[in-house]
């Protein structure tokens, strides 16, 4: 019970830390909306030429576009966002690793707080703007809420591993860039994954990145049965958090060896 209170407190801290920067979040939401409009027009031109492409109607394609623009904030599509990244560089991570609460759950709670705030500040505006300027369809499946949260957790699990690599590399910028590249392309942010050709589509749809963006959007649209979508996301949640726990204990041994 005490544990639960602690993690709830951390969730609140994550929420509050990000809510300090309201102007920045609104500017981000505006930019996400502008890009949404540009993407929507390209998709409309494409769907008008080829109706029913990737199994979507034109309205579904436009809905997909604005929904996924709204995912950029909570799913932290461009990477980073975890506060312990800088602490690895400064060495303060040594304190975090010996705290009674495990680093993984600690930062997960904070990250869920961050995502909750960004859902309000950066997901709602592009979605509302999209619904006003174009036509969007509402959520088909009530399981969307669950799928959305699982998407955030998959995103966290991936970024946790990427951030932790700084324990082994001296310059972590390359890893972060590679990660945001992979996330952006294979999640469905660039184009719906159903448009990808052959094997590229197979790889993308099986990747954890699909579980962050494409899958929650498909649950909203009812394009994929909820049970298989949630099962796929749960698989990646378990796999990434499991790997994260392993990597944390490896990092802990490494820090102890070098510590002092």
């Amino acid at each position, binding site marked *: 019970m005490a544990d639960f209170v602690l993690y709830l407190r951390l969730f609140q801290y994550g929420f509050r830390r990000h809510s300090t*920067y309201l*102007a*920045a979040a*609104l*500017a*981000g939401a*505006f*930019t996400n909306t*502008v*890009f949404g*409009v*540009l993407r929507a*027009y*390209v998709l*409309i*031109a*494409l769907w008008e*030429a*080829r109706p029913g*492409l990737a199994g979507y109607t034109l309205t579904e394609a436009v809905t997909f576009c604005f929904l996924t623009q709204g995912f950029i904030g909570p799913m932290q599509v461009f990477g980073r966002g975890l506060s312990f990244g800088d602490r690895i560089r400064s060495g303060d991570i040594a304190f975090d690793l010996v705290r009674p609460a495990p680093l993984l759950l600690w930062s997960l709670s904070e990250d869920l707080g961050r995502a909750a705030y960004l859902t309000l500040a950066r997901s709602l505006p592009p979605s509302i703007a999209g619904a006003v300027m174009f036509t969007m369809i509402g959520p088909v499946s009530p399981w969307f809420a669950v799928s959305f949260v699982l998407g955030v957790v998959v995103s966290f699990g991936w970024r946790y591993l990427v951030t932790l690599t700084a324990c082994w590399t001296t*310059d972590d*910028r*390359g890893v972060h*860039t*590679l990660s*945001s*590249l992979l996330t*952006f*392309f294979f999640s469905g942010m*660039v*184009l719906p994954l159903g*448009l*990808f*050709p052959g094997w590229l589509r197979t790889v993308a749809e099986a990747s954890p990145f699909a579980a962050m963006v494409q899958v929650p959007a498909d649950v909203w649209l009812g394009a994929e049965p909820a049970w298989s979508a949630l099962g796929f996301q749960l698989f990646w949640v378990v796999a990434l958090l499991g790997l994260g726990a392993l990597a944390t204990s490896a990092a802990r041994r490494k820090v102890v060896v070098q510590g002092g």
Partner: protein
Amino acid sequence: MGDYLLLAWTWARASAQYRTSFAVSILSSFAINALDAVAIGIVFTHVTTLGGFSLREVMFLYGTGGVSFAVADMLFGNVERLSQHIRAGTFDTMLIRPVSPFVQMAADGFGAHRIGRLAQAVIVLGLSLPVVPWSRAWMVPVMIVCGVVIFTAVFTLGAALQFVLVDAPELANAFTYGGVTLTQYPLSVYGDQLVRGVTYIVPLAFVNWQPALYVLGRPDPFGLPGWLRFAAPLAALLLSAVAALAWRAGIRRYRSTGN
């Protein structure tokens, strides 16, 4: 000019000291921007024309807009970090040095790795050149230069805006990065009002769309007057004047953060 070159060269040499990191930065700058080109390639596996334009023609638009943006971004894109400098107080230091603050801002942390983005755009432009008839090829360098000027002006306007909106620098991204994204596709895919807006208000249509209509010998799908396709230099000059005024007004208005 000399000050700019000296500062930029110093920063470029500094970043090249860490060779692996520098190489990785160039490669990732190349790869991140190549994703947009890959997306265009994927779109064209489903259609033969988009908004009435073929793959090669879209690549021509992507290439010209991309080269203009990459040059402007490399030379002056750093002005978008103004709000960071204001908050850190380092902008005050720039104001008392005997070099123009704009030059200092542009050259500060000069991103030589952005050559990766430029290389990517140059390759796409090179592949698209077969659609350009010899007699109209003279327009290509003209439109690229005008594009560089227009994007530089947009970057400057975005920076000037940060004098007012210190806490929301990302707002400018909608016009800079949004601008280059807009120019990657033929404007015929966008709505009528949006196109009028980027023709008469924020003149991004002159980066590549209007001159490209001349180069590719196309009628204007929106029926705008024909002389507009030669108006890129005028648009670039006007926007630069507005941007310079905005920047000056911003400097005059600037009162430091006070600590």
